């Protein structure tokens, strides 16, 4: 009796599905045909694939991790936080799905970084502050000259 589809009451029930309406969970056992009619199969397949995907990725030593900051995919799933810029390329396949879910988009639109020169100077200034902190005055002097040169050229 338990194995009869609860929708058509004819075929064998092969799929267990959980329906949640207004927070109330009901479980139904249905046959392949009824499930397909109700659009359950595709959903279920997709979920199964995604779950399998996550399981293989997070499985033991083969787990995907970011070479930049050593963040593992399972830790990212747990905290929701990425560890560095490189994580975006390391996990890009999974992120594409996640971003589509959040933003309904997976590509940036609009303004980017300022002009190339601005970015270069910013990077040099940052390196300069690092050199000063490490008391590497030789590098600091060189960096300062470079910054001056670029700023003079762009003016």
């Amino acid at each position, binding site marked *: 009796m338990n194995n009869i589809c609860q929708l058509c009451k004819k075929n064998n029930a092969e799929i267990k599905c959980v329906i949640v309406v207004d927070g109330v969970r009901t479980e139904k056992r249905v046959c392949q045909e009824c499930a397909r009619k109700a659009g359950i199969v595709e959903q279920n397949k997709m979920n199964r694939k995604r779950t399998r995907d996550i399981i293989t990725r997070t499985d033991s030593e083969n787990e995907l991790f970011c070479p930049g900051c050593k963040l593992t995919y399972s830790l990212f799933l747990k905290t929701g936080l990425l560890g560095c*810029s490189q994580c*975006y390329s390391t996990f890009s396949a999974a*992120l594409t799905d996640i*971003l589509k879910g959040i933003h309904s988009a997976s*590509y*940036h639109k609009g303004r*980017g970084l300022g002009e190339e020169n*601005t*970015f270069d100077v910013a990077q040099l200034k940052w390196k300069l502050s690092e050199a000063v902190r490490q008391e590497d005055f030789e590098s600091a002097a060189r960096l300062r000259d470079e910054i001056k040169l670029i700023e003079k050229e762009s003016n």
Partner: protein
Amino acid sequence: MIEKSYPPNLPSWISDGGENFEVVISTEALYVRNLADRPFPNTLDREEREISRRQMTEILGRILPDYRFLETDRMEEQDRKYLAERGSLPEELLPRPQGTGLFLTEIENSWVALNTSDHLRFRFVMPGTDVETVYRKARDLEEKMEQSLPFAYSERFGFLTSRPTECGTGLMIGFIVHIPGIVYSNNFSKLRDSLLKAGLTLKPFADPSISSEGHLFWIRSAHTLGLDEEEILETSRDMIYELVEMEFKARDAIMSKARYQVEDKILRGIGILTHARMIARQEGYALANALRLDAAEGITLDAIDLISATELFLVGKPAHLTAIVGEGNQLQMDTNRAELFRDYLKIEG
């Protein structure tokens, strides 16, 4: 240590008032940025965060002369809570302040937070509905920083952030709104659904653990990827003006259909405020809700002005109450709250 002060010293976005202040208390623009070629702060240990803070502080100190710098990990917990209650310190800096920092303006209309889960989060806030000004000011800040700090960016994902929910433009527009009309006329879930559809989120302004019948909410744009900045501004602007109209209509409707019930709620509130000797936090919020509606619409006795009624939401919070009237146990806090609220009323109890 924050000095005890009475009358309380409040941030400019609450005490200045602005366009549509009856409904929209403030508008903010928030940017999230990270530095290129180095891990985000959430993967750094304490020492590494301190080093990166020192470097950023050196550079930002020159760019931001009007801001004072606070080493958040050296502040007392009470002071951090005090600033967080008034939105002048991101909540993320409350539990884990090691190696973090905050640049804050004197009138607290802008801050730049260092080493939250991202290297830089910065915001600008104005009273009322003023999307243009907050965006322009926050953008100015961003441009200034971009001259000296190399931001992490990719063509595909835009500005890179530790949370995938914030990458892309890294720009969010937020509002604090007071919507008793919409709540009383049972249109709240309709509003929440339409905000969600338009890509905005809504959460209670009061501590979510306090389930008071709140009428004060945070609304924030949730999509940072796939929309450019102009589109984000437009969506937020359209939504907020629609919401203001919806709230005014709802207030008119309840005033014509249920004037006595509303007046009853407000006058009972005033009765409690003038005579109660103890007011708990949750009750304080409910009273502030009723009084602010009264002040905005001039319904009853003109017992309080709109700005003072808005301040009630803030001064009743624990860290503020402590800063204004001093420390105490639960009992003393409730007594202090009642006394402080009574002082705000223009009528004698």
